[in-house]
Protein backbone atom coordinates (compact mmCIF):
# COMPACT_ATOMS: atom_id res chain seq x y z
CA UNK A 1 0.00 0.00 0.00
CA UNK A 2 1.38 3.41 -0.93
CA UNK A 3 0.67 5.78 1.93
CA UNK A 4 1.23 9.50 2.35
CA UNK A 5 0.91 11.66 5.47
CA UNK A 6 0.78 15.45 5.45
CA UNK A 7 2.79 17.19 8.18
CA UNK A 8 2.37 20.90 8.82
CA UNK A 9 4.17 23.15 11.28
CA UNK A 10 2.33 25.60 13.52
CA UNK A 11 3.47 28.31 15.97
CA UNK A 12 4.78 26.86 19.23
CA UNK A 13 2.40 28.31 21.81
CA UNK A 14 4.79 27.53 24.67
CA UNK A 15 6.80 30.44 23.34
CA UNK A 16 5.44 33.93 23.04
CA UNK A 17 4.02 35.18 19.78
CA UNK A 18 4.60 38.72 18.63
CA UNK A 19 1.61 40.34 17.03
CA UNK A 20 2.47 43.10 14.63
CA UNK A 21 0.05 45.22 12.64
CA UNK A 22 0.13 43.09 9.50
CA UNK A 23 2.11 40.09 10.63
CA UNK A 24 2.04 37.45 13.34
CA UNK A 25 5.59 36.49 14.29
CA UNK A 26 5.97 33.28 16.26
CA UNK A 27 9.22 32.69 18.17
CA UNK A 28 9.37 29.04 17.09
CA UNK A 29 7.42 26.47 15.09
CA UNK A 30 6.47 22.97 16.08
CA UNK A 31 4.85 20.02 14.30
CA UNK A 32 1.07 20.24 14.23
CA UNK A 33 -0.07 17.70 16.82
CA UNK A 34 -2.94 16.26 14.79
CA UNK A 35 -0.57 15.76 11.84
CA UNK A 36 1.87 13.93 14.13
CA UNK A 37 -1.02 11.57 14.86
CA UNK A 38 -1.72 11.30 11.11
CA UNK A 39 1.91 10.26 10.55
CA UNK A 40 1.67 7.77 13.43
CA UNK A 41 -1.52 6.23 12.00
CA UNK A 42 0.11 6.05 8.56
CA UNK A 43 3.00 4.10 10.10
CA UNK A 44 0.55 1.84 11.93
CA UNK A 45 -1.24 1.14 8.62
CA UNK A 46 2.11 0.29 7.06
CA UNK A 47 2.72 -2.20 9.90
CA UNK A 48 -0.69 -3.76 9.24
CA UNK A 49 -0.79 -3.77 5.46
CA UNK A 50 2.81 -3.39 4.33
CA UNK A 51 3.94 -0.85 1.75
CA UNK A 52 5.61 2.49 2.21
CA UNK A 53 4.96 5.80 3.94
CA UNK A 54 5.92 9.13 2.40
CA UNK A 55 5.67 12.13 4.68
CA UNK A 56 4.89 15.43 2.99
CA UNK A 57 6.02 18.39 5.08
CA UNK A 58 4.12 21.56 4.15
CA UNK A 59 5.86 24.85 4.86
CA UNK A 60 6.13 28.42 3.70
CA UNK A 61 9.40 29.79 2.40
CA UNK A 62 10.18 31.45 5.73
CA UNK A 63 9.45 28.34 7.81
CA UNK A 64 11.10 25.89 5.40
CA UNK A 65 13.70 24.58 7.86
CA UNK A 66 11.24 24.26 10.75
CA UNK A 67 9.81 21.04 9.37
CA UNK A 68 13.19 19.28 9.10
CA UNK A 69 13.16 17.97 12.67
CA UNK A 70 9.54 16.74 12.56
CA UNK A 71 10.34 15.02 9.24
CA UNK A 72 13.44 13.40 10.74
CA UNK A 73 11.28 12.27 13.68
CA UNK A 74 8.93 10.53 11.20
CA UNK A 75 11.95 8.96 9.51
CA UNK A 76 13.26 7.69 12.86
CA UNK A 77 9.87 6.09 13.45
CA UNK A 78 9.92 4.27 10.12
CA UNK A 79 8.79 6.62 7.34
CA UNK A 80 10.35 5.75 3.98
CA UNK A 81 10.48 9.00 2.02
CA UNK A 82 10.47 12.60 3.13
CA UNK A 83 9.28 15.42 0.93
CA UNK A 84 9.18 19.09 1.75
CA UNK A 85 6.58 21.10 -0.11
CA UNK A 86 7.54 24.75 0.02
CA UNK A 87 4.61 27.00 -0.71
CA UNK A 88 5.29 30.30 -2.32
CA UNK A 89 2.23 32.25 -1.43
CA UNK A 90 1.00 35.59 -0.38
CA UNK A 91 -2.56 34.59 0.10
CA UNK A 92 -3.80 32.67 3.10
CA UNK A 93 -6.72 31.09 1.29
CA UNK A 94 -6.54 27.50 2.25
CA UNK A 95 -8.43 26.33 -0.81
CA UNK A 96 -5.63 27.61 -3.03
CA UNK A 97 -3.09 25.81 -0.84
CA UNK A 98 -5.10 22.59 -1.14
CA UNK A 99 -5.28 23.06 -4.91
CA UNK A 100 -1.50 23.43 -5.10
CA UNK A 101 -0.90 20.34 -2.95
CA UNK A 102 -3.49 18.35 -4.93
CA UNK A 103 -1.69 19.21 -8.15
CA UNK A 104 1.50 17.76 -6.69
CA UNK A 105 -0.15 14.68 -5.17
CA UNK A 106 -2.49 13.69 -8.00
CA UNK A 107 -0.08 11.57 -10.07
CA UNK A 108 1.88 10.03 -7.19
CA UNK A 109 -0.33 6.96 -6.96
CA UNK A 110 -1.03 7.08 -3.22
CA UNK A 111 -3.66 4.65 -1.97
CA UNK A 112 -4.23 6.58 1.23
CA UNK A 113 -3.38 10.16 2.20
CA UNK A 114 -3.53 11.01 5.90
CA UNK A 115 -3.92 14.52 7.31
CA UNK A 116 -4.59 15.76 10.82
CA UNK A 117 -8.16 16.98 11.15
CA UNK A 118 -7.12 20.39 12.40
CA UNK A 119 -4.29 22.71 13.27
CA UNK A 120 -4.07 25.25 16.07
CA UNK A 121 -3.69 28.06 13.57
CA UNK A 122 -6.59 26.92 11.40
CA UNK A 123 -9.92 26.62 13.12
CA UNK A 124 -11.59 25.20 10.08
CA UNK A 125 -9.34 22.14 9.82
CA UNK A 126 -10.36 21.76 6.25
CA UNK A 127 -7.24 20.64 4.43
CA UNK A 128 -8.28 16.98 4.17
CA UNK A 129 -11.73 17.74 2.80
CA UNK A 130 -10.48 20.34 0.36
CA UNK A 131 -7.71 18.05 -0.89
CA UNK A 132 -10.33 15.36 -1.47
CA UNK A 133 -12.49 17.82 -3.41
CA UNK A 134 -9.56 18.93 -5.55
CA UNK A 135 -8.48 15.34 -6.24
CA UNK A 136 -11.99 13.96 -6.61
CA UNK A 137 -11.37 11.36 -3.87
CA UNK A 138 -13.48 10.24 -0.91
CA UNK A 139 -12.71 11.90 2.43
CA UNK A 140 -13.53 10.77 5.93
CA UNK A 141 -12.60 12.78 9.02
CA UNK A 142 -12.62 12.04 12.74
CA UNK A 143 -10.53 8.92 12.16
CA UNK A 144 -9.17 7.09 15.22
CA UNK A 145 -8.25 3.71 13.75
CA UNK A 146 -7.59 2.21 10.33
CA UNK A 147 -7.61 -1.48 9.47
CA UNK A 148 -7.38 -3.49 6.30
CA UNK A 149 -10.01 -6.24 5.98
CA UNK A 150 -10.17 -8.44 2.88
CA UNK A 151 -8.13 -5.94 0.97
CA UNK A 152 -10.27 -2.91 1.74
CA UNK A 153 -9.88 -0.15 4.30
CA UNK A 154 -12.10 -0.25 7.38
CA UNK A 155 -11.99 3.03 9.22
CA UNK A 156 -13.15 3.80 12.74
CA UNK A 157 -14.49 7.32 13.07
CA UNK A 158 -15.32 9.29 16.20
CA UNK A 159 -18.88 10.57 16.00
CA UNK A 160 -18.97 12.57 19.23
CA UNK A 161 -20.86 11.87 22.40
CA UNK A 162 -18.74 8.77 22.91
CA UNK A 163 -20.08 7.10 19.78
CA UNK A 164 -17.96 5.42 17.14
CA UNK A 165 -18.77 4.40 13.61
CA UNK A 166 -17.07 1.90 11.31
CA UNK A 167 -16.88 2.60 7.60
CA UNK A 168 -15.61 0.75 4.57
CA UNK A 169 -13.57 3.17 2.46
CA UNK A 170 -12.49 2.51 -1.10
CA UNK A 171 -9.01 3.56 -2.09
CA UNK A 172 -7.53 5.90 -3.03
CA UNK A 173 -8.91 8.00 -0.19
CA UNK A 174 -8.05 10.83 2.15
CA UNK A 175 -8.38 10.25 5.89
CA UNK A 176 -8.53 13.01 8.51
CA UNK A 177 -7.03 11.75 11.78
CA UNK A 178 -8.09 12.88 15.26
CA UNK A 179 -5.64 10.69 17.10
CA UNK A 180 -3.64 7.60 16.26
CA UNK A 181 -4.76 4.35 17.83
CA UNK A 182 -1.66 4.24 20.04
CA UNK A 183 0.28 7.02 21.76
CA UNK A 184 2.88 8.75 19.62
CA UNK A 185 6.01 6.63 19.51
CA UNK A 186 8.87 7.99 21.61
CA UNK A 187 12.11 8.71 19.78
CA UNK A 188 15.25 8.99 21.94
CA UNK A 189 17.41 12.07 21.40
CA UNK A 190 20.38 10.19 19.89
CA UNK A 191 18.13 8.37 17.41
CA UNK A 192 16.54 11.66 16.33
CA UNK A 193 19.93 13.32 15.81
CA UNK A 194 21.08 10.32 13.76
CA UNK A 195 17.91 10.53 11.66
CA UNK A 196 18.50 14.24 11.09
CA UNK A 197 21.93 13.42 9.67
CA UNK A 198 20.82 10.46 7.59
CA UNK A 199 17.39 11.47 6.33
CA UNK A 200 17.19 12.71 2.79
CA UNK A 201 14.51 15.34 2.25
CA UNK A 202 13.33 16.02 -1.30
CA UNK A 203 12.12 19.53 -1.89
CA UNK A 204 9.35 20.67 -4.19
CA UNK A 205 8.16 24.20 -4.77
CA UNK A 206 4.44 24.69 -4.99
CA UNK A 207 3.08 27.85 -6.48
CA UNK A 208 0.00 29.15 -4.78
CA UNK A 209 -1.72 31.80 -6.84
CA UNK A 210 -2.43 35.11 -5.25
CA UNK A 211 -6.10 35.75 -4.78
CA UNK A 212 -7.34 39.26 -5.00
CA UNK A 213 -10.15 40.54 -2.88
CA UNK A 214 -8.91 39.85 0.66
CA UNK A 215 -6.24 41.96 2.31
CA UNK A 216 -5.09 41.88 5.90
CA UNK A 217 -6.01 45.18 7.56
CA UNK A 218 -4.54 44.38 10.97
CA UNK A 219 -3.93 41.61 13.45
CA UNK A 220 -4.71 42.36 17.08
CA UNK A 221 -5.50 40.89 20.45
CA UNK A 222 -8.91 41.72 21.86
CA UNK A 223 -8.68 44.47 24.46
CA UNK A 224 -8.12 43.12 27.96
CA UNK A 225 -11.03 43.72 30.31
CA UNK A 226 -10.47 46.24 33.06
CA UNK A 227 -10.15 44.63 36.47
CA UNK A 228 -10.97 46.50 39.65
CA UNK A 229 -10.09 44.94 42.97
CA UNK A 230 -12.55 45.76 45.72
CA UNK A 231 -10.99 46.16 49.15
CA UNK A 232 -12.36 46.56 52.64
CA UNK A 233 -14.14 44.57 55.36
CA UNK A 234 -16.94 42.20 54.34
CA UNK A 235 -19.76 44.72 54.92
CA UNK A 236 -17.99 47.45 52.98
CA UNK A 237 -17.19 44.97 50.23
CA UNK A 238 -20.82 43.89 49.98
CA UNK A 239 -21.96 47.50 49.63
CA UNK A 240 -19.35 48.24 46.97
CA UNK A 241 -20.27 45.08 45.11
CA UNK A 242 -23.96 46.02 45.10
CA UNK A 243 -23.09 49.44 43.69
CA UNK A 244 -20.98 47.91 40.95
CA UNK A 245 -23.71 45.41 40.06
CA UNK A 246 -26.23 48.28 39.88
CA UNK A 247 -23.88 50.23 37.63
CA UNK A 248 -23.70 47.37 35.16
CA UNK A 249 -27.49 46.88 35.43
CA UNK A 250 -27.26 43.39 36.92
CA UNK A 251 -29.25 44.58 39.94
Amino acid at each position, binding site marked *: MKICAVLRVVPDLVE*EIEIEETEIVPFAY*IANERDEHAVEEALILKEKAGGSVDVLGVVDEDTASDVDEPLAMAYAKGADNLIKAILSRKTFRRYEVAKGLAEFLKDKGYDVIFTGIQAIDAFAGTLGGMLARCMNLPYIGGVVEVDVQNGTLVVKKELGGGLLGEYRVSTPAILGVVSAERPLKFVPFAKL*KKAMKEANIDEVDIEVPEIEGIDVLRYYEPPKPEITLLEGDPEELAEKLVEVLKEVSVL
Partner: protein
Amino acid sequence: MDVGEMLETYFERLSEVSESERYKQCLQCGTCGGSCPYGIASPFTPRRMILALRAKLIDEILESGAQWLCTACYTCSYRCPSQIPLTDAIIPALRELSLLEGNPPEELAAALMNTARYGNPFRESPRKRDSWTKEVEFEVPLMSKKKEADVLFIPECFGAYHRRCREITKAFAEVMYLLGVDFAILGNEERCIGDLTRLCGEFGLFEDLMEKNIKTFEKYSFNRIVTHDAHAFNALKREYPKMGFEKEVLHHTQFLFENLDKLKDMFNELDYTVTYHDSCYVGRRNGIFEEPREVIKAIPGLRFVEMKRIRENALCCGGGGGGVWLDSFIRNFLKERPAEDRVREAASVGADVLVTACILDVPMFEDALKVTGLEGQLVVKDISELVLEAIR
Protein backbone atom coordinates in the same frame (compact mmCIF):
# COMPACT_ATOMS: atom_id res chain seq x y z
CA MET B 1 14.28 -5.37 17.99
CA ASP B 2 14.57 -9.11 18.51
CA VAL B 3 15.99 -10.55 21.72
CA GLY B 4 19.49 -10.87 20.24
CA GLU B 5 19.56 -7.20 19.24
CA MET B 6 18.16 -6.17 22.61
CA LEU B 7 20.89 -8.06 24.46
CA GLU B 8 23.59 -6.66 22.18
CA THR B 9 22.37 -3.08 22.64
CA TYR B 10 21.96 -3.61 26.38
CA PHE B 11 25.43 -4.99 27.04
CA GLU B 12 27.02 -2.40 24.77
CA ARG B 13 25.51 0.33 26.92
CA LEU B 14 26.45 -1.50 30.09
CA SER B 15 30.07 -1.67 28.96
CA GLU B 16 30.16 2.14 28.87
CA VAL B 17 29.36 2.43 32.59
CA SER B 18 32.27 1.86 34.90
CA GLU B 19 32.16 -1.25 37.07
CA SER B 20 29.08 -2.58 35.32
CA GLU B 21 30.95 -5.86 34.73
CA ARG B 22 30.23 -6.54 38.36
CA TYR B 23 26.79 -7.82 37.41
CA LYS B 24 28.60 -11.09 36.65
CA GLN B 25 29.37 -11.34 40.36
CA CYS B 26 25.71 -11.21 41.43
CA LEU B 27 25.25 -13.70 44.29
CA GLN B 28 21.47 -13.80 43.88
CA CYS B 29 21.27 -12.94 47.58
CA GLY B 30 18.14 -10.81 47.17
CA THR B 31 19.33 -7.92 49.35
CA CYS B 32 18.34 -5.54 46.54
CA GLY B 33 14.74 -6.73 46.26
CA GLY B 34 14.33 -6.73 50.02
CA SER B 35 15.62 -3.15 50.18
CA CYS B 36 13.59 -1.77 47.27
CA PRO B 37 10.59 0.46 48.06
CA TYR B 38 8.82 -1.32 45.17
CA GLY B 39 10.34 -4.76 45.76
CA ILE B 40 7.10 -6.18 47.08
CA ALA B 41 5.23 -5.26 43.89
CA SER B 42 7.84 -5.63 41.18
CA PRO B 43 7.70 -8.64 38.86
CA PHE B 44 11.47 -8.29 38.41
CA THR B 45 13.51 -7.04 41.38
CA PRO B 46 17.14 -6.22 40.50
CA ARG B 47 18.12 -9.77 41.54
CA ARG B 48 15.51 -11.27 39.20
CA MET B 49 16.51 -8.84 36.44
CA ILE B 50 20.07 -10.17 36.53
CA LEU B 51 18.80 -13.74 36.65
CA ALA B 52 16.60 -13.06 33.61
CA LEU B 53 19.47 -11.34 31.76
CA ARG B 54 21.64 -14.41 32.34
CA ALA B 55 18.84 -16.54 30.90
CA LYS B 56 18.47 -14.14 27.91
CA LEU B 57 14.90 -13.31 28.94
CA ILE B 58 15.40 -9.56 28.55
CA ASP B 59 12.15 -9.21 26.60
CA GLU B 60 10.20 -10.59 29.57
CA ILE B 61 11.64 -7.92 31.87
CA LEU B 62 10.70 -5.18 29.41
CA GLU B 63 7.20 -6.52 28.84
CA SER B 64 6.56 -6.61 32.58
CA GLY B 65 7.34 -2.88 32.96
CA ALA B 66 9.58 -3.63 35.98
CA GLN B 67 12.30 -1.34 34.63
CA TRP B 68 10.03 1.61 35.44
CA LEU B 69 9.40 0.47 39.01
CA CYS B 70 12.51 2.17 40.32
CA THR B 71 12.86 5.53 42.06
CA ALA B 72 16.66 5.38 41.72
CA CYS B 73 16.80 5.66 45.52
CA TYR B 74 20.14 3.87 45.50
CA THR B 75 19.34 1.60 48.46
CA CYS B 76 19.91 -1.57 46.42
CA SER B 77 23.22 -0.28 45.03
CA TYR B 78 24.30 0.89 48.48
CA ARG B 79 23.61 -2.46 50.09
CA CYS B 80 24.67 -4.80 47.27
CA PRO B 81 27.49 -7.00 48.61
CA SER B 82 28.92 -7.27 45.08
CA GLN B 83 28.65 -3.48 44.59
CA ILE B 84 26.85 -3.86 41.28
CA PRO B 85 25.83 -0.45 39.83
CA LEU B 86 22.15 -1.38 39.76
CA THR B 87 20.81 2.20 39.89
CA ASP B 88 23.35 3.77 37.55
CA ALA B 89 23.63 1.01 34.95
CA ILE B 90 21.54 -2.17 35.18
CA ILE B 91 18.17 -0.39 35.32
CA PRO B 92 18.81 2.72 33.14
CA ALA B 93 20.20 0.50 30.36
CA LEU B 94 16.95 -1.52 30.45
CA ARG B 95 14.98 1.72 30.36
CA GLU B 96 16.96 2.81 27.31
CA LEU B 97 15.67 -0.26 25.47
CA SER B 98 12.09 0.78 26.26
CA LEU B 99 12.86 4.22 24.88
CA LEU B 100 14.36 2.70 21.73
CA GLU B 101 11.26 0.54 21.34
CA GLY B 102 9.34 3.81 21.50
CA ASN B 103 6.96 2.93 24.31
CA PRO B 104 7.92 4.36 27.71
CA PRO B 105 5.09 5.44 30.07
CA GLU B 106 3.38 8.42 28.48
CA GLU B 107 3.92 11.06 31.17
CA LEU B 108 7.60 10.24 31.29
CA ALA B 109 7.86 10.31 27.48
CA ALA B 110 6.33 13.80 27.48
CA ALA B 111 8.75 14.99 30.18
CA LEU B 112 11.73 13.71 28.19
CA MET B 113 10.52 15.19 24.91
CA ASN B 114 9.89 18.53 26.60
CA THR B 115 13.36 18.47 28.10
CA ALA B 116 14.85 17.87 24.66
CA ARG B 117 12.86 20.71 23.10
CA TYR B 118 12.60 23.32 25.84
CA GLY B 119 15.38 22.37 28.27
CA ASN B 120 12.82 21.66 30.99
CA PRO B 121 10.31 18.84 31.48
CA PHE B 122 7.32 21.13 32.11
CA ARG B 123 6.75 22.39 28.56
CA GLU B 124 7.51 25.89 29.78
CA SER B 125 9.23 28.57 27.76
CA PRO B 126 13.01 28.59 28.30
CA ARG B 127 12.70 32.36 28.27
CA LYS B 128 10.69 32.27 31.49
CA ARG B 129 13.24 30.27 33.47
CA ASP B 130 14.27 33.28 35.52
CA SER B 131 10.73 34.55 36.12
CA TRP B 132 10.98 33.65 39.85
CA THR B 133 13.49 36.48 40.26
CA LYS B 134 10.68 38.98 39.67
CA GLU B 135 8.88 37.65 42.75
CA VAL B 136 11.61 38.60 45.25
CA GLU B 137 12.37 42.00 46.73
CA PHE B 138 16.10 41.87 46.18
CA GLU B 139 18.10 41.73 42.98
CA VAL B 140 19.15 38.31 41.76
CA PRO B 141 22.26 38.95 39.65
CA LEU B 142 22.52 37.41 36.20
CA MET B 143 25.81 35.94 35.02
CA SER B 144 25.23 37.45 31.56
CA LYS B 145 25.47 40.90 33.16
CA LYS B 146 27.80 40.24 36.07
CA LYS B 147 30.23 37.96 34.17
CA GLU B 148 31.87 36.73 37.40
CA ALA B 149 30.79 35.69 40.88
CA ASP B 150 32.01 33.51 43.71
CA VAL B 151 28.96 31.24 43.53
CA LEU B 152 26.98 30.13 40.51
CA PHE B 153 23.54 29.21 41.86
CA ILE B 154 21.65 26.56 39.85
CA PRO B 155 17.89 26.56 40.59
CA GLU B 156 17.37 23.68 38.06
CA CYS B 157 13.99 22.91 36.47
CA PHE B 158 11.79 22.24 39.50
CA GLY B 159 13.32 25.20 41.32
CA ALA B 160 12.74 27.47 38.35
CA TYR B 161 9.26 26.42 37.21
CA HIS B 162 7.37 24.30 39.75
CA ARG B 163 5.09 26.62 41.68
CA ARG B 164 5.86 25.14 45.13
CA CYS B 165 9.54 24.53 44.46
CA ARG B 166 10.04 28.13 43.35
CA GLU B 167 9.31 29.11 46.96
CA ILE B 168 12.33 27.05 47.99
CA THR B 169 14.48 28.70 45.32
CA LYS B 170 13.38 32.13 46.49
CA ALA B 171 14.05 31.19 50.13
CA PHE B 172 17.55 29.92 49.46
CA ALA B 173 18.38 32.91 47.24
CA GLU B 174 17.22 35.21 50.03
CA VAL B 175 19.39 33.39 52.57
CA MET B 176 22.38 33.90 50.26
CA TYR B 177 21.41 37.54 49.79
CA LEU B 178 21.13 38.11 53.56
CA LEU B 179 24.47 36.37 54.10
CA GLY B 180 26.03 38.77 51.60
CA VAL B 181 27.14 35.96 49.29
CA ASP B 182 28.56 37.00 45.92
CA PHE B 183 26.30 34.85 43.73
CA ALA B 184 24.67 34.92 40.32
CA ILE B 185 22.41 32.71 38.18
CA LEU B 186 22.46 31.78 34.51
CA GLY B 187 18.82 32.83 34.18
CA ASN B 188 17.37 31.89 30.84
CA GLU B 189 20.71 30.48 29.69
CA GLU B 190 20.33 27.64 32.19
CA ARG B 191 18.83 24.37 31.00
CA CYS B 192 18.06 21.04 32.64
CA ILE B 193 21.14 19.53 34.31
CA GLY B 194 19.70 16.17 33.35
CA ASP B 195 20.23 13.66 36.17
CA LEU B 196 16.70 12.32 35.73
CA THR B 197 17.23 11.88 31.96
CA ARG B 198 20.33 9.79 32.76
CA LEU B 199 18.52 7.66 35.32
CA CYS B 200 15.66 7.17 32.84
CA GLY B 201 18.05 5.80 30.23
CA GLU B 202 17.91 8.84 27.88
CA PHE B 203 21.71 8.82 27.64
CA GLY B 204 21.85 10.71 24.34
CA LEU B 205 19.82 13.59 25.73
CA PHE B 206 21.86 13.62 28.94
CA GLU B 207 25.09 13.93 26.96
CA ASP B 208 23.64 16.75 24.89
CA LEU B 209 22.52 18.61 28.03
CA MET B 210 25.94 18.15 29.63
CA GLU B 211 27.71 19.48 26.54
CA LYS B 212 25.46 22.52 26.28
CA ASN B 213 25.56 23.29 30.00
CA ILE B 214 29.34 23.00 30.22
CA LYS B 215 29.65 25.33 27.24
CA THR B 216 27.48 27.86 29.10
CA PHE B 217 29.46 27.43 32.35
CA GLU B 218 32.68 28.11 30.44
CA LYS B 219 31.42 31.54 29.38
CA TYR B 220 31.65 32.85 32.93
CA SER B 221 34.05 33.06 35.82
CA PHE B 222 32.96 31.56 39.15
CA ASN B 223 34.57 29.50 41.88
CA ARG B 224 31.88 26.98 42.61
CA ILE B 225 28.36 25.87 41.95
CA VAL B 226 25.74 25.71 44.68
CA THR B 227 22.37 24.07 44.13
CA HIS B 228 19.43 23.05 46.28
CA ASP B 229 18.44 20.39 43.72
CA ALA B 230 19.87 17.09 44.98
CA HIS B 231 19.83 15.46 41.54
CA ALA B 232 21.50 18.43 39.87
CA PHE B 233 24.10 18.31 42.64
CA ASN B 234 24.65 14.59 42.02
CA ALA B 235 25.03 14.94 38.25
CA LEU B 236 27.30 18.01 38.47
CA LYS B 237 29.46 16.31 41.07
CA ARG B 238 29.61 12.79 39.65
CA GLU B 239 28.80 12.88 35.92
CA TYR B 240 29.88 16.28 34.59
CA PRO B 241 33.56 15.71 35.54
CA LYS B 242 33.53 12.81 33.05
CA MET B 243 32.97 15.46 30.35
CA GLY B 244 35.78 17.65 31.67
CA PHE B 245 33.90 19.92 34.06
CA GLU B 246 35.95 20.29 37.20
CA LYS B 247 34.53 23.05 39.38
CA GLU B 248 33.66 22.53 43.04
CA VAL B 249 29.97 21.69 43.50
CA LEU B 250 28.15 22.12 46.80
CA HIS B 251 24.70 21.07 47.89
CA HIS B 252 22.87 23.85 49.71
CA THR B 253 22.97 21.85 52.97
CA GLN B 254 26.77 21.93 52.77
CA PHE B 255 26.72 25.61 51.93
CA LEU B 256 24.43 26.43 54.86
CA PHE B 257 26.66 24.39 57.17
CA GLU B 258 29.73 26.24 55.89
CA ASN B 259 28.03 29.50 56.83
CA LEU B 260 26.67 28.24 60.14
CA ASP B 261 28.74 30.52 62.39
CA LYS B 262 27.38 33.56 60.57
CA LEU B 263 23.87 32.14 60.55
CA LYS B 264 23.95 31.40 64.29
CA ASP B 265 24.30 35.13 64.98
CA MET B 266 21.26 35.77 62.81
CA PHE B 267 18.99 32.99 64.12
CA ASN B 268 15.84 33.82 66.05
CA GLU B 269 13.97 31.30 68.13
CA LEU B 270 11.48 28.95 66.44
CA ASP B 271 8.99 26.84 68.34
CA TYR B 272 8.64 23.55 66.43
CA THR B 273 9.31 19.88 66.81
CA VAL B 274 11.13 18.94 63.63
CA THR B 275 12.41 15.79 62.01
CA TYR B 276 14.77 15.51 59.07
CA HIS B 277 14.31 13.35 55.99
CA ASP B 278 17.60 12.10 54.51
CA SER B 279 16.99 12.56 50.78
CA CYS B 280 18.53 9.78 48.68
CA TYR B 281 20.95 11.89 46.65
CA VAL B 282 21.98 14.05 49.59
CA GLY B 283 22.44 11.25 52.13
CA ARG B 284 22.77 7.71 50.84
CA ARG B 285 24.36 8.60 47.47
CA ASN B 286 26.56 11.49 48.54
CA GLY B 287 27.14 10.96 52.25
CA ILE B 288 25.79 14.28 53.51
CA PHE B 289 24.21 13.33 56.84
CA GLU B 290 25.65 15.60 59.54
CA GLU B 291 25.61 19.02 57.85
CA PRO B 292 21.82 19.43 57.63
CA ARG B 293 21.35 18.05 61.15
CA GLU B 294 23.92 20.53 62.52
CA VAL B 295 22.16 23.43 60.81
CA ILE B 296 18.74 22.41 62.14
CA LYS B 297 20.00 21.78 65.66
CA ALA B 298 21.67 25.21 65.74
CA ILE B 299 18.32 27.00 65.42
CA PRO B 300 17.29 27.95 68.96
CA GLY B 301 13.95 26.69 70.25
CA LEU B 302 13.65 23.77 67.82
CA ARG B 303 13.14 20.30 69.24
CA PHE B 304 14.80 17.78 66.92
CA VAL B 305 13.54 14.20 66.75
CA GLU B 306 14.74 11.41 64.50
CA MET B 307 12.53 9.05 62.55
CA LYS B 308 13.26 5.33 62.66
CA ARG B 309 14.56 4.99 59.10
CA ILE B 310 17.35 7.52 58.84
CA ARG B 311 20.69 8.17 57.19
CA GLU B 312 21.64 5.30 54.83
CA ASN B 313 18.38 3.52 55.62
CA ALA B 314 16.05 6.45 54.93
CA LEU B 315 12.97 5.71 52.83
CA CYS B 316 12.77 7.39 49.43
CA CYS B 317 10.07 10.00 48.64
CA GLY B 318 9.38 8.18 45.35
CA GLY B 319 10.16 11.16 43.10
CA GLY B 320 13.67 10.32 41.90
CA GLY B 321 14.77 8.46 38.80
CA GLY B 322 11.81 9.83 36.89
CA GLY B 323 9.43 8.62 39.64
CA VAL B 324 7.84 12.04 39.69
CA TRP B 325 6.66 11.32 36.10
CA LEU B 326 5.68 7.72 36.74
CA ASP B 327 3.03 8.12 39.41
CA SER B 328 0.08 6.77 37.40
CA PHE B 329 2.21 3.94 35.98
CA ILE B 330 3.44 2.85 39.40
CA ARG B 331 -0.08 3.03 40.83
CA ASN B 332 -0.92 0.04 38.62
CA PHE B 333 1.44 -2.01 40.76
CA LEU B 334 1.37 -0.43 44.20
CA LYS B 335 -1.45 1.19 46.13
CA GLU B 336 0.53 3.14 48.74
CA ARG B 337 3.22 5.54 47.64
CA PRO B 338 6.50 5.55 49.60
CA ALA B 339 5.87 9.25 50.39
CA GLU B 340 2.64 8.33 52.21
CA ASP B 341 4.54 5.81 54.33
CA ARG B 342 7.21 8.42 55.05
CA VAL B 343 4.90 11.24 56.20
CA ARG B 344 3.09 8.79 58.49
CA GLU B 345 6.47 7.94 59.98
CA ALA B 346 7.28 11.64 60.49
CA ALA B 347 3.93 12.21 62.19
CA SER B 348 4.39 9.12 64.38
CA VAL B 349 7.51 10.59 66.00
CA GLY B 350 5.58 13.73 66.92
CA ALA B 351 7.08 16.14 64.38
CA ASP B 352 5.25 19.37 63.44
CA VAL B 353 7.66 20.00 60.58
CA LEU B 354 9.25 17.51 58.21
CA VAL B 355 12.47 19.11 56.99
CA THR B 356 13.84 18.00 53.62
CA ALA B 357 16.82 18.82 51.44
CA CYS B 358 15.86 17.58 47.97
CA ILE B 359 13.58 19.72 45.86
CA LEU B 360 11.48 16.73 44.74
CA ASP B 361 10.66 15.85 48.36
CA VAL B 362 8.48 18.84 49.06
CA PRO B 363 5.80 18.28 46.37
CA MET B 364 5.95 14.51 46.89
CA PHE B 365 5.42 14.79 50.66
CA GLU B 366 2.84 17.58 50.41
CA ASP B 367 0.78 15.41 48.06
CA ALA B 368 1.16 12.54 50.53
CA LEU B 369 -0.12 14.75 53.38
CA LYS B 370 -3.33 15.32 51.42
CA VAL B 371 -3.79 11.60 50.73
CA THR B 372 -3.05 10.50 54.30
CA GLY B 373 -5.17 13.21 55.94
CA LEU B 374 -2.14 14.60 57.78
CA GLU B 375 -2.50 18.04 56.22
CA GLY B 376 -2.71 20.56 59.04
CA GLN B 377 -0.91 18.26 61.46
CA LEU B 378 2.44 18.11 59.67
CA VAL B 379 4.14 20.73 57.51
CA VAL B 380 6.88 20.07 54.94
CA LYS B 381 9.71 22.58 54.59
CA ASP B 382 12.96 22.60 52.75
CA ILE B 383 15.90 23.31 55.07
CA SER B 384 16.45 26.69 53.39
CA GLU B 385 12.86 27.71 54.16
CA LEU B 386 13.42 26.80 57.82
CA VAL B 387 16.68 28.76 57.92
CA LEU B 388 15.08 31.80 56.28
CA GLU B 389 12.25 31.69 58.79
CA ALA B 390 14.79 31.65 61.62
CA ILE B 391 16.82 34.62 60.33
CA ARG B 392 14.03 36.87 59.14
